[in-house]
């Protein structure tokens, strides 16, 4: 599981529910796992000054982002007794209601997955150079900032 080279975390467009279901299914052969914890980021149709967000267009400094994802991954494996960890992030357009981030951790024990998942999601939000252009229904836009 714990390979040493950065891999590409990005997927073009939204992350589909079939993909997520399939990822869960693939873990049925890993019978040392007792607990999975999954975080999904979904694009919100926020209302800002009377205009509604219809989609976010994601771009990234891809090389640096994949390196940061890799560092987060390595450090999470060091800190927590995880069996598996998977991270996927969208690039390009993701509409309101669609999934843009999928983080999946698994461990023999449940306490570990709660801690690990929050650690990973917060690290992604803080350290990975991904940029989001919130597109309003009238095609105007503003730039999203993580809080």
């Amino acid at each position: 599981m714990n390979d040493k080279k950065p891999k590409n975390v990005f997927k073009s467009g939204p992350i589909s529910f079939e993909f997520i279901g399939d990822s869960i299914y693939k873990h049925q052969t890993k019978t040392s796992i007792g607990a999975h914890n999954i975080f999904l980021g979904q694009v919100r149709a926020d209302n800002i000054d009377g205009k509604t967000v219809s989609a976010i267009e994601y771009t990234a400094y891809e090389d640096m982002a994949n390196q940061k994802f890799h560092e987060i991954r390595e450090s999470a494996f060091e800190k927590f007794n995880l069996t598996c960890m998977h991270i996927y992030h969208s690039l390009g357009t993701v509409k309101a209601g669609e999934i843009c981030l999928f983080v999946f951790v698994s461990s023999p024990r449940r306490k570990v997955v709660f801690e690990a998942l929050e650690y990973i999601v917060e690290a992604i939000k803080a350290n990975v150079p991904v940029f989001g252009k919130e597109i309003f229904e009238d095609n105007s836009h503003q730039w999203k900032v993580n809080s």
Partner: protein
Amino acid sequence: MRITVKYFGQISEITQKEEEVLEIYETSIAQLLDRIYSKYEKLKNKEFKIAQNRELVDMNTEINGSEIALLPPFAGG
């Protein structure tokens, strides 16, 4: 020295380009930034971080990498 400067998100909206190659004599990030500000004045009002060869650096860092990136606030997830 020849470096590539990369612009992302709202920064690239101002520079109207995603990257450019600059021949530089500046030795610190702060000096390079002065040059970039003089080219793109509107950047002065923008918040961003700077990465050198994919690692965040501060203003006093010496330039020794070939890739400098201007990174607006992160919005991952």
